[in-house]
């Protein structure tokens, strides 16, 4: 808490506005995955066949931010707890006390091939893409669960 603040409330508010703008841009990118063009690849032609890849696309993201005013240098503790609650003169000068704020965000995207569409002399065919790694993991999990159940059952019989 300092009396001479490098960052006034106005500067902090403008920073938050800037962060809001960036967050909106990030969200636009997240929601761009909802377009059909994100699922289907560009057609590739070779040896009389045109091939289009199809993938499952998942994306998500979020952000959060906040700021507030600390206890004032005033002794009567009348400083507003939030920027919105601060009187206009305090917002301009930041006289209500220390100003603090922070924010963060994150996001991610994932794609998984599902099928290949082939257009050729024999018509249109859809060939599925099987993810053997995922299936092996699911199979191992199911097998381990069953093994655990069988063991538990045997123990119950012995008692």
């Amino acid at each position, binding site marked *: 808490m300092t009396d001479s603040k490098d960052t006034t409330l106005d500067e902090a508010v403008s920073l938050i506005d800037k962060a809001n703008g960036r967050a909106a841009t990030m969200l636009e990118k997240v929601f761009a995955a909802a377009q*059909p063009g994100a*699922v289907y690849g560009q057609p590739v032609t070779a040896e009389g066949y045109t091939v289009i890849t199809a993938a499952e696309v998942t994306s998500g993201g979020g952000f959060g931010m906040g700021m507030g005013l600390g206890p004032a240098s005033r002794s009567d503790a009348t400083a507003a707890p939030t920027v919105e609650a601060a009187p206009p003169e305090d917002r301009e000068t930041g006289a209500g006390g220390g100003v603090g704020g922070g924010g963060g965000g994150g996001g991610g995207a994932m794609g998984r091939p*599902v099928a290949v569409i082939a257009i050729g002399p024999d018509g*249109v065919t*859809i060939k599925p893409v099987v993810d053997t790694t995922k299936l092996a993991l699911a199979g191992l999990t199911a097998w381990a669960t*069953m093994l655990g159940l069988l063991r538990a059952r045997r123990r119950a019989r012995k008692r």
Partner: protein
Amino acid sequence: MRSGIDITWAQEASAEPVTVGDVTVTPRARALVVRTPRGGFVWNRPSAVIVERSGQVRRIQVVDVTRVLQLGLLGLGLAIAVASAFSSPRRTEVAP
């Protein structure tokens, strides 16, 4: 300030049609979109392909074989677990 989930919807849309010779293929995708005030989530997957050939229109489903097999394995595991639970020997209390 808004709170909670604002919009959740599912949509089906067509991608750019691809024409090869006399065949026109229009891929279709289905998306689930969840939009919240501070974030969002999108799950988009291929649903079908519309094939137009000499005036005839045919719809071919795009099946996610990996997902089907995964769910099958999950269902099998659950079925065996339930069957095991119901068929386990019950201990009967004998009065002294």
